[in-house]
């Protein structure tokens, strides 16, 4: 039956199983689903960043034929409990922060839902939106996080003691010694701009409520369905088991679809209220306005150096502009703790963390969540020091790398780096780019007056997060480790199927799952059907963390799939041996057949499957009927050593990579063009090189465009100006440079397959572009402290430079 042997399938560039149905347009996305009697929802949204809601008059909308219901924020609040996140915060802000996912009495960001309309079709719903009259009393919007920190600042949320909702200082090593003994201290006020992910498909939800069974079924494109079920159930006062979460195809997340649970909850309530299925498909401008944004951060950073480039220490005051609600936060504001010193050896650090509310869209997870910001901080300070020490930016990094012989290396928090070779990573990247030759060309072209820059960035990205990180901001929380869950079944005809408690959003989960199972069961990946989605009633999902975020699939899910495949292999062998009438140790699995070692005598999966399910009368007591294997992989992570001090191992794996960008800046227009772009990443053991390469492409696209194109802009009244793709400059393939990527495989020390996770890149592509622009402008004496390259700003600085 098998078309393969399984040998060496792990590591092959197997073609993607999911491609066919997607390429012929037969994927099943939420909007493809039509249920009987289905209604459509649309949200009335606040045109103000901050306004008291004095009243809502829905009578005009209700008169429009086809409108079924208009639900205001107050009505929602009378039925639902506020979402959990805030209430668990270990600061005094916890009591007053209340997140209903919709404005109640006061709107706190432009685009916040204020009321929902339910109608017979989406056009009527949209028309009705314009007929709901909301009486607003505009309030002063708080937009600058530094002003927001002031005690006298207007409060974003009523009743909070301060807009600074979480503040903590974490210290490691001996900072005074580091700075007093330094030859050079560089200081910068760095700004990481507000940017978001722009998946092709915005949020999409269908909720239907079965009054008889009390079951709320949700079809959505969430990437975090298990956790969502818990949050929604809690807010709707029901058991999580009664919230059935079904997800299948998903038009991209990049972190963004971790944050749709407030909307799922609202649409869920609409279905319960109307007694009919309700579909809500978010529109693009709503997505840009009011899904979730990435972390916007200000750093006051200082780094101490010796004259030879050795880093002695770093201190930074972070002001995290969280927007108006804490959704996943303060995770992004604390994710630096997972990779405190990046790939470098310094050990004296202080981080002063301030999480501040403003009247903007809530920030939450986005690819390289809070980690690319941290890379930006470290790599910017190193870059500045290299210039001041007139040291080559590559050389200063080589000076400070942790070396392979020091692995496993314990960083100052107690994070245990799981192998890797940082110097080789940078060496190979420089070789790919032709670094020396480019420096030479740069010298020549500079003489001709050209502005050429070469930017280097090396970044760490910790994956496989320890759930005990939450103990940092939830005192006494007893939660640790991480798990993944996988189930494999072989039916009575020998067909193999598998399901995993993840959500694939272009990650090729079907393909790599099949590869791992094929290798263990000596089959071809084509022999294995992988359930392309998640259904909380069918998928054996492990815990509320299940889903896809933080690049955990390659870690916990691979562990789960491997474990389940090994259990299944054992079962097949035992059933086969029983059928062959000999002890298990005398049989082997070869091309999907149980074979008596050293002979040709064998039984195939088809026979084994049939016997295990259909001839159970003959089975001995100690042989379990059927062929089902389930495994929960338990990542070897311990609780934090001291949460209040920020000590512990926060991640199972520590991936890293390097990027080099070469840019030219047009002196007359300020425009930056990429002449060359090279990126290398170490995912540990690579299950499928084609998939890994594709992931690196995405990471480059995402992060180089964050530097050059994408930026969310609010005006002085707090209105988002970039609320369409005309003004939010998401790039297309035509804007990407020629991508030159490579994978370097240094097996991770603590995962079952040696995989390390990948594809978020730690911001290396972004920082490489910014550093390249800095390098290009350095002869003009220009320092750039922002992560965003704005042509007009660049031109102004060129014109304003005294070195012209």
């Amino acid at each position: 039956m098998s078309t393969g042997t399984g040998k060496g399938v792990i590591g092959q560039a197997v073609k993607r199983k999911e491609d066919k149905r997607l390429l012929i347009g037969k994927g099943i996305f939420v909007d493809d689903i039509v249920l009987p009697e289905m209604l459509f929802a649309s949200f009335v949204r606040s045109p103000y960043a901050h306004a008291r809601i004095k009243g809502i008059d829905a009578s005009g909308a209700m008169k429009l034929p086809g409108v079924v219901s208009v639900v205001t924020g107050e009505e929602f609040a009378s039925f639902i409990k506020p979402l959990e996140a805030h209430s668990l915060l270990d600061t005094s802000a916890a009591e007053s922060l209340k997140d209903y996912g919709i404005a109640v009495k006061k709107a706190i960001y432009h685009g916040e839902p204020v009321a929902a309309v339910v109608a017979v079709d989406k056009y009527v719903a949209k028309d009705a939106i314009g007929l709901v009259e909301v009486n607003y009393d505009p309030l002063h919007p708080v937009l600058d996080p530094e002003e927001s920190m002031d005690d006298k600042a207007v409060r974003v949320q009523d009743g909070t003691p301060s807009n600074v909702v979480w503040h903590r200082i974490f210290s490691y090593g001996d900072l005074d010694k580091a700075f007093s003994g330094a030859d050079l201290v560089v200081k910068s006020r760095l700004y990481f701009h507000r940017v978001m992910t722009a998946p092709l498909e915005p949020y999409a939800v269908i909720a239907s409520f079965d009054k008889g069974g009390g079951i709320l079924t949700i079809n959505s494109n969430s990437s975090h369905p298990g956790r969502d079920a818990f949050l929604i159930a809690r807010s709707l006062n029901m058991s999580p088991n009664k919230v059935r979460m079904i997800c299948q195809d998903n038009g991209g997340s990049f972190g963004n679809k971790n944050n749709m649970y407030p909307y799922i909850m609202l649409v869920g309530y609409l279905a319960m209220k109307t007694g009919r299925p309700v579909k809500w498909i978010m529109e693009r401008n709503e997505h840009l306005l009011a899904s979730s944004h990435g972390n916007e951060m200000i750093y006051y950073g200082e780094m101490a150096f010796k004259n030879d480039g050795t880093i002695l220490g770093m201190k930074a005051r972070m002001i995290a502009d969280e927007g108006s609600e804490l959704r996943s936060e303060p995770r992004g504001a604390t994710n630096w703790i997972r990779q405190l010193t990046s790939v470098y050896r310094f050990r004296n650090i202080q981080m002063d963390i301030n999480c501040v509310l403003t009247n903007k869209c809530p920030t939450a997870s986005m690819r390289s969540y809070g980690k690319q910001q941290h890379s930006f901080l470290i790599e910017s300070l190193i870059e500045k020091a290299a210039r001041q020490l007139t040291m080559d930016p590559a050389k200063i990094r080589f000076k400070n790398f942790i070396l392979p012989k020091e692995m496993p290396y314990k960083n100052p928090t107690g994070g245990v780096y799981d192998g890797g070779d940082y110097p080789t990573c940078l060496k190979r990247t420089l070789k790919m780019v032709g670094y020396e030759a480019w420096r030479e060309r740069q010298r020549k072209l500079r003489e001709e007056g050209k502005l050429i820059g070469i930017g280097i960035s090396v970044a760490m990205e910790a994956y496989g997060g320890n759930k005990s990180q939450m103990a940092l901001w939830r005192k006494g929380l007893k939660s640790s480790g991480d798990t993944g869950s996988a189930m494999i079944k072989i039916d009575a005809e020998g067909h193999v199927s598998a399901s995993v408690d993840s959500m694939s959003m272009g990650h090729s989960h079907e393909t790599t799952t099949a590869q791992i199972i094929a290798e263990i069961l000596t089959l071809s990946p084509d022999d294995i059907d992988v359930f392309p989605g998640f259904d909380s009633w069918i998928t054996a999902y492990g815990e509320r963390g299940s889903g896809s975020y933080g690049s955990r699939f390659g870690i916990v899910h691979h562990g789960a799939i491997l474990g389940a495949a090994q259990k299944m292999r054992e079962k097949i062998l035992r059933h086969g041996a029983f059928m062959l009438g000999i002890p298990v140790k005398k049989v082997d699995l070869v091309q999907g057949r149980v074979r008596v070692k050293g002979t040709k005598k064998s039984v195939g999966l088809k026979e084994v499957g049939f016997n295990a399910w259909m001839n159970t009368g003959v089975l001995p007591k100690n042989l379990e009927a059927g062929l089902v294997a389930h495994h929960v992989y338990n990542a070897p992570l311990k609780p934090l050593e001291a949460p209040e001090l920020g000590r512990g191992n926060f991640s199972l794996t520590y991936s890293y990579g390097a990027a080099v960008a070469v840019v030219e800046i047009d002196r007359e227009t300020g425009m930056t063009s990429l002449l060359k772009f090279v990126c290398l990443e170490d995912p540990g053991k690579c299950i499928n090189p084609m998939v890994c390469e594709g992931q690196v492409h995405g990471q480059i696209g995402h992060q180089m465009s964050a530097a050059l194109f994408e930026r969310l802009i609010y005006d002085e009244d707090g209105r988002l100006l970039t609320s369409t793709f005309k003004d939010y400059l998401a790039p297309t393939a035509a804007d990407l440079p020629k991508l030159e990527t490579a994978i370097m495989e240094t097996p991770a020390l603590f995962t079952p397959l040696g995989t390390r996770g990948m594809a978020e890149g730690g911001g290396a592509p972004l920082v490489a572009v910014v550093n390249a622009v800095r390098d290009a402008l350095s002869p003009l004496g220009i320092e750039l402290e922002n992560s965003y390259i704005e042509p007009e700003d660049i031109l102004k600085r060129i014109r304003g430079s005294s070195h012209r």
Partner: protein
Amino acid sequence: MYPASFDYFQAENVEQASRLLREYGEEARVIAGGQSLIPFMKYRLALPKYLVDIRGIPGLSFIDKKDGCVRIGALTVHREIEESDLIRSQLPIMRDAAPLIGDPQVRNLGTLGGALCHADPAGDWGPVVLALEGRLKCVGANGERELEAKDFFVDAYSTRLQPDEVLTEVVLPVPGAKSGGAYLKLARRTGDFAMASVAVQLTLDEAGVCQHIGIGAGAAGRTPLRVPDAEGVVRGEKISATVLKEAARRLSQAADPIPDLRGSGEYKREILKALLQRAAQIAASRCKERR
């Protein structure tokens, strides 16, 4: 983003289209490729109650040459202009502009006539048609008339077209043998509308002295801009850095770009200057190539 509801007509000929437009007046709009109108309707910036689709009208999509002029039917899509051999040999400046418009999908559907009638201040065809001194044929209840391109644009998204008129054809005089043209556009991202753009069509004599020049600028004000003041500086002169610098200065004086998220008016003036000088140099070198 969902448009408000509307009624839809498919016109069989220009007269019928014009009649419908007259009948429904302000509430009716022509739809051609829909590449500007539909986005406007989805944002509910345009709320037409009646759409008159002219794509089914025969004989409005063509590119040919007659009486020293290239004539392009209003329904000709950007892609056809991009791929036309006649355009490539007779009006290479159009060949510069066409591939810069939007993306392949937009170019497959969007029409030359639609782009001109939409009159986006940052549109690409406006400056080109101005530099080429084109004429626009319009048909309405009162018959046919021809408008000079320089008189066509009134304001942002507004033209001299009467509510019942349909643009049917664009007439572009073919420049002489010693002429060269170039269109340069600066966009923030591939296929974006221009932050600034400049079209230059230049004719030089044997000695390299400028006999004739047409300059059109995009995103330089509320309408595409013809810049006689800058043209005057170049006409009768050899192309030199000094002359072009002065022409660029005049252009930036004449321009009053609309500030937006891509840049302030001041910044756009600066890039207009750079683009004019570069486009003129390319146009001049193309004159030489053709000789």
